[in-house]
């Protein structure tokens, strides 16, 4: 890759086992991201996705390896990397504006209050919460709280946004609207995003690349699936794209069966530094069969006409 904006270089994380030795959650993980890329990581619970994200955030340290962001190895948390927490993590004693302004004033410490508030207000409006800025988190619905979390992360204009299953606690309708918002904002601002999810559709809708992670312990990155869908996609019809089911089924197959025995299946051919990049290109056989079936009567009609 030409522009290695973020480069995860051989990181691993292990915990001491009771009775000596270490349990490795994952090891020797290599991944690079380009500027403006949206990457989703999918894998089963316990494979260490959240640990990878925490290492990227600087909240956790790897047992080995390093992460380089924009040419600098990360050492601890930074305002360059904003985190959107699964549990929104708003400060309940502050208003919506107070929560966002807290982040803004942390980034630009010499700004006057008026400037901080104006800047925060801009991002509150961006996530569609204008008018609710003086409410406290307890007065907001789950979706609105997560919007505040997004506004707070965006307001510090980070180089990269890290999202840890940001929508998993929301109902399906709210999740859909928020996905649309995030997609719109990320496209407008060219934000680089690293997101963890359980939801295959969410990954296909939002991501440029979907990274598949095998089950832990000893989890590895199995494949990087390039999203074949066009950059301009709409929620209303992205699932009708001819390559949608191919992509979806590939990811689901991985999650259901291959994530368990990927390493054995690779038979030593797996190289963690060269994670295979895959681009689902062929339509799913099942779809083809349906097309054939619908095509046949046409042909016979033609035959009858002749």
């Amino acid at each position: 890759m030409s522009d290695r904006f973020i480069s995860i270089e051989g990181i691993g994380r292990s915990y001491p086992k009771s009775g000596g030795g270490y349990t490795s959650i994952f090891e020797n993980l290599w991944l690079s991201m380009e500027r403006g890329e949206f990457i989703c990581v999918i894998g089963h619970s316990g494979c260490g996705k959240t640990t990878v994200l925490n290492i990227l955030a600087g909240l956790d340290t790897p047992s080995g390896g390093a992460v380089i962001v924009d040419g600098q190895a990360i050492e601890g948390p930074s305002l360059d990397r904003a985190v959107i927490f699964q549990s929104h993590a708003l400060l309940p004693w502050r208003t919506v504006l107070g929560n966002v302004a807290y982040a803004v004033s942390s980034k630009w410490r010499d700004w006057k209050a008026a400037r901080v508030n104006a800047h925060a207000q801009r991002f509150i409006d961006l996530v569609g919460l204008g008018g609710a800025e003086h409410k406290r988190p307890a007065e907001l619905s789950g979706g609105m709280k997560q919007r505040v979390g997004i506004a707070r992360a965006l307001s510090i204009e980070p180089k990269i946004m890290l999202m840890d299953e940001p929508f998993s606690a929301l109902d399906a309708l709210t999740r859909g609207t928020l996905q649309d918002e995030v997609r719109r904002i990320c496209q407008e601002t060219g934000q680089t995003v690293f997101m963890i999810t359980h939801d295959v559709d969410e990954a296909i809708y939002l991501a440029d690349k979907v990274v598949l992670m095998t089950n832990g312990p000893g989890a590895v990155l199995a494949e990087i699936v390039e999203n074949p869908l066009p950059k301009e996609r709409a929620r209303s019809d992205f699932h009708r794209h001819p390559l949608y089911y191919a992509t979806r089924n590939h990811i689901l197959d991985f999650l259901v069966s291959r994530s368990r025995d990927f390493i054995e299946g690779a038979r030593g051919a797996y190289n963690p530094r060269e994670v295979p990049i895959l681009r689902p290109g062929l339509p799913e056989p099942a779809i083809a069969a349906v097309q054939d079936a619908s095509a046949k009567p046409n042909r016979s009609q033609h035959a009858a006409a002749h």
Partner: protein
Amino acid sequence: MKTASLTGRAAVVSLALLFCFLVAWHLATRETGTSQRMDPEYAKLMGVTATQGKSAMPGPIDVGAKLWEHLRRPFYDNGPNDKGVGIQLAFSIARVLTGYLLAILVAVPAGFLIGMSPLMSKSLDPFIQVLKPISPLAWMPLALYTIKDSSLSAIFVIFICSLWPTLINTAFGVASVRREWLNVAKTLEVGTFRRAFTIILPAAAPTILTGMRISIGIAWLVIVAAEMLVGGTGIGYFVWNEWNNLSITNVITAILVIGIVGMLLDLMLARLARLVTFPE
């Protein structure tokens, strides 16, 4: 028919209970008429208790009259052993507040230190565990010997008894601030001092206030006993002095006043706690 609100019905029950109590008290202590024929001279010596069967315990009317008398003239001063109940209370409250505020000034920062540093928490824990269960009055001789001033010793006793609940609650509140809020501060690169004041303090404030509320309750309990020992002034001294005067009426009046002041102190702290509580 509309049912009255819960508060309204509770007030009716409370008043009914109070009324029953006052009636029972009155009946138990009233005069039963001349019980014995005796020589008038002897009867004069014996007083109403023996001659008319009146209980030595004052009835509610006696106490009410005495209370009214005190309330009408709370601040009179007829020398060291005869001061208005208002003056005595003022002395007690001043001692309690001085000792209490000093304790808060020490306990909150110390609790912060213990809560934020696992090392300090572990190393100070044995001292706290040993010092906490000591009755504050056990410090009194040591305080009198070292400070050599009875009034300051009382303040010291209040200080030492108010210290522990606030210290322990502050340490607990600070140590159990939610990980995610601390992570927010970390990812925003917030420094230690700013983190302490903008994240930990507001998050732990409800727990700290609970500790402060327990402290003021204990301080008010202890001041009465402490003043009985040090003497001179204060509501505790007043109770002991009136016991020596065998004025049970005054003792009961003082008990009532102690209860009401204690309730008011608690209410003040509860109001303060509500200010810093945040809904989740």
